[in-house]
C-alpha cells in the first residue's frame, strides 16, 4: 500500500486510521503513484474523505481549513503554527 504524506491522507475523525483513499485525488492509496498528491498537499487541503472517498465540504480561512465528510465528520487544521 502506498501512502502519501499526512496532508494528503489527513485522517477524518478516526485518529490513527490512515484510510483507503487519497484525500487529494480521490483514488485508492494503493492505486498508482501519489507523489504529486503529496506535493499538492503542502498547498491544498484534502478534498476527498480518506475513509469513503466522498467529496468533502472544505472551508479555507486565512489561518486554517475545515473539511467535512457527511459520513465521517469534520476535521480542522490550523495552518498558522
Amino acid at each position, binding site marked *: 500500500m502506498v501512502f502519501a504524506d499526512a496532508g494528503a491522507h489527513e485522517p477524518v475523525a478516526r485518529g490513527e486510521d490512515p484510510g483507503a483513499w487519497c484525500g487529494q485525488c480521490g483514488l485508492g492509496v494503493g492505486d498508482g503513484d501519489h507523489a504529486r498528491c503529496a506535493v499538492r498537499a503542502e*498547498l*491544498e487541503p484534502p478534498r476527498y474523505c480518506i475513509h469513503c472517498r466522498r467529496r468533502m465540504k*472544505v*472551508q479555507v480561512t*486565512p489561518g486554517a*481549513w475545515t473539511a467535512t465528510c457527511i459520513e465521517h465528520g469534520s476535521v480542522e487544521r490550523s495552518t*498558522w*503554527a
Partner: protein
Amino acid sequence: MTAQVTGTDILDVAREQVLGRGVPLTEEQVLEVLRTGDDRLQDLLALAHEVRMTYQGPAVEVEGIVSLKTGGCPEDCHFCSQSGQFTSPVRSVWLNIPELVRAAKQTAATGASEFCIVAAVRGPDARLMEQMREGVAAIRAAVDIQVAASLGMLTQEQVDELVDMGVHRYNHNLEAGRSYFPQVVTTHSFDERLETCRMVKESGMELCCGGLVGMGETLEQRAELAAQLGELEPHEVPLNFLNPRPGTPFGDLEPMSTNDALRTIAAFRLALPRTILRYAGGRELTLGDLGTRDGLLGGINAVIVGNYLTTLGRDPREDLALLDELEMPIKALNETF
C-alpha cells in the same frame, strides 16, 4: 527638465520615462520589457524597485482574504476550481458570520490593514447581500480592519449598498487582456467586467482590479492586460500566477517560470508606477521563497497573508519575517501610499 533618452535600450528608456518623469510605460514598451532576456532580469527588478520606492515608498500593504461562499459558481472562468461547470472536487460551502469574524480577527492579528470577503458568484443575490450586510457590520464592531469585497458583477444599486455598508474597496479583476479574455471566460464579457469596475470607481470605493498571468496568453496579450489596467487606473492591482487546478480547462497547463513571473512583476510596476501591486494567488507555486523575495525587491508592495480562497498560502510569520528583514514596514491602518 529631464532630457529625453535617445537610446533604444528599454531599461534606459524606462528609467528616464517612469523613474524620471513618472510616465508609465505604454503597451508597446511593456511588451519590450517582457521580451528582455534573463541576463537583464536583475537590472529590470532593480529599476522596478526604484520606481516602487519613489512613488509608493517602503511600506507594504498586508491583506487577508476569505471565501464567504465557495464553489458552485455558474461562470466558466477556465482557471477557477470554484466553477460549477467543471469536474473540480471543490464543493459548495458557506461561511457563517462567527467564522467570518474569527477570520478577520486572525488577519488583523498579523498587522494586516485589509480583509477581503469573496464569494464565488456571477453577481450577488439578495441572500448574499444580506449576509454581507450582517458580516461587515459584525467585523466592524469587533475588529479594527478595513473591509473589502469581491462578489462578482454588480448593479448600481448593489454598489450603493456596499458603500452604505462601509466596504471601502471592491475587487473585480479583468482576468486577462481583452483579446485573450474570450479564451478564459465565455459566460460573460470583458465589457461587463469593465462596467462593474467603472461603477465602483465612480462610487468612491477604491477599485482593486488585476488579473492572472501564465494562462497561455502571449506576451503581447500580457502587455495588453497591463495597458488596459493602466487605463482603468485602479487603486490596487492584484497579480495572480496561474496555479493549474485539477478538473479545470487550464488544469494541465504548466506553471509559468520564476523568471517570467518576475519579469511580469517588474513590467507591471513600470506600467503602473503609482498603483499598489499585490502578490495574489499562485506565488508559492511559481516563485517559491527566493522568488517571493525577489518580487518584493522588484516592484511588489502588497501581499496576501495566510491562505487563499481554496488553497493554502505560506505561514504568515515567514512573510512578516521577510518584510522585517527587507526593512519594509507593514502599512498602518488608514495610511495612504
